């Protein structure tokens, strides 16, 4: 590889890294802004999540005497796993800095690791609220897993037998998919949108705005976190949102432009996903909690149909 190419690759990796680490809170802020616009109010500033993070990281924390080191492991794991998972997910034309055979499994399982640690962290408080949130998180994200993997399977069917299994190759096959069986790809994208919403506890699965302990999933899990650990949790959640959004985006984003074009489409895509989520949240009610599994199973079935359509193309 000659120097300019190397430089270009390094530039792409850096751009990817910058988007992954710096952009996520903006997405959360954008969702809030969209919802505010829908409601007919100004809403918090776009940069509010950054302000909140900056404040939390600089203020004190209060720890429950019931808790142990496990409680503090949760926030650390939430951030580390989300960031590492993000490292292997390409953003449209911006290749992931790290790519290897089977990296797609790592995305799902790193998120699972983060979930495991945050659930333990919640259970460490010995409170019914956190237990409730943890139980819901465990149940719902577990049911979201098949939809995610069926999406991977659908894409894998586009690749020739043999050869590697990299997320980059898999997602690069998406344009073929749209050409061959657009219906199937649409179903996969829909299923992944459901995964995005449930994994990030958005309406219709969870309502991050109610602030009522008994109905929430994510916020009630972190009810006892404060100060810097809470900041880490919020940042980790934002990064996780970005990572799954990147996965979803890579199904549809055009690629192959220059570095600047790819960066621009990538960022624009992420912002568009945030707007989409904001619109969804603004226009429908939250599901009854025990109806959530039905919707998740439907998402898996959608992805399953996607697999079938792509298999018979």
């Amino acid at each position, binding site marked *: 590889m000659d120097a300019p190419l190397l430089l270009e690759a390094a530039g792409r990796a850096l751009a990817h890294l910058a988007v992954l680490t710096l952009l996520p809170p903006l997405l959360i802020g954008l969702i809030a802004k969209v919802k505010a616009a829908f409601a007919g109010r100004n809403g918090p500033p776009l940069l509010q999540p950054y302000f909140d993070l900056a404040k939390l990281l600089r203020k004190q924390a209060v720890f429950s005497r019931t808790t142990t080191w496990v409680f503090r492991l949760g926030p650390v794991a939430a951030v580390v796993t989300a960031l590492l998972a993000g490292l292997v997910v390409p953003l449209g034309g911006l290749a992931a800095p790290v790519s290897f055979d089977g990296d797609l499994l790592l995305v799902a399982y790193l998120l699972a690791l983060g979930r495991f640690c945050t659930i333990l962290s919640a259970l460490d408080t010995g409170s019914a609220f956190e237990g409730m949130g943890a139980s819901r998180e465990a149940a719902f994200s577990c049911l979201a897993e098949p939809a995610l993997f069926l999406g991977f399977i659908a894409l894998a069917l586009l690749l020739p037998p043999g050869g590697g299994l990299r997320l980059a190759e898999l997602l690069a096959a998406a344009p073929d998919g749209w050409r061959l069986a657009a219906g199937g790809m649409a179903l996969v994208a829909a299923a992944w949108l459901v995964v995005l919403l449930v994994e990030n506890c958005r309406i219709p699965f969870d309502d991050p705005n109610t*602030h009522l302990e008994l109905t929430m999933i994510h916020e009630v899990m972190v009810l*006892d976190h404060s100060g810097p650990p809470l900041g880490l949790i919020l940042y980790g959640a934002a990064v996780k949102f970005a990572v799954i959004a990147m996965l979803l985006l890579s199904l549809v984003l055009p690629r192959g432009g220059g570095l600047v074009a790819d960066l621009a489409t990538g960022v624009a895509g992420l912002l568009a996903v945030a707007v989409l989520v904001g619109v969804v949240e603004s*226009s429908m009610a939250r599901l009854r909690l025990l109806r959530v599994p039905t919707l998740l199973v439907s998402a898996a079935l959608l992805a399953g149909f996607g697999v079938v359509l792509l298999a018979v193309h």
Partner: protein
Amino acid sequence: MITALLARLRQGHHTNRFPAQVPPLPDRLRGRPVVDSTLCPPGCRACADACAVDAIAIGADGGRPAPRIDLGKCLFCPDCSEACPPKALRFTNEFRLATSARGDLEVADGRVYALGRALAGRIRRLYGRSLKLRVVSAGGCNGCEVDVNVLGTLAWDLGRFGISYVASPRHADGMLICGGVSRNMELAVRKTWEAIPGPKVCIAVGACAIAGGPFAGHPEQCDGAAGLVPVDLFIPGCPPHPLTILDGLLRLIGRIEDQAAPPAPPAG
């Protein structure tokens, strides 16, 4: 979804432009009272006698009565102004009422009403753009809660200033307390205060939270929050108008700094 969008178009945008522009207030709103003791007849105690909650003390100003109104106790009912024959005491439409110290909550002729100041240095830098409050309702009538809640609606849109209410005290930067703190809530208020990570602020909203309101002196309650926790901002009223609360909060985080209140319009 389409009906929701159409409904959105119909309902329009409603957030007011405070603090750049003060939204219209009801003309009969009883805001900050003013006293013109030059009009007070000698020996007159009508206002103090009419006040059911002993908010008015009559001092002497060179032989003439000089009423001093403790806004911390005042319920902003019209009893005193109705009782004042020469209209020496009247309520204005001035909504700016929040103060930083309990002692500042006094209206008297010739006295400059010291509005609330911003938090000091580091805390202000921390909370200037992000302030999460844990609202504790403790032994009031749910009236202040109504107006605290109203700030979250789209007309007031508290969120645009980076202020919001949170579920857990661990997530909070301060406590906003309504109600005179009943004996049964004393422990809960203390526990909530201790659960908030520092540095923390406390805001007392309404006459009850400041001095017990209409229930002052009842053995079933503590006559306000100040006896339990250090209060950084007092917002008087029964209940305070949402604009009064918002003005107070913005002063606390340094978003409004002017002390010189514009001349009060006449009461309706």
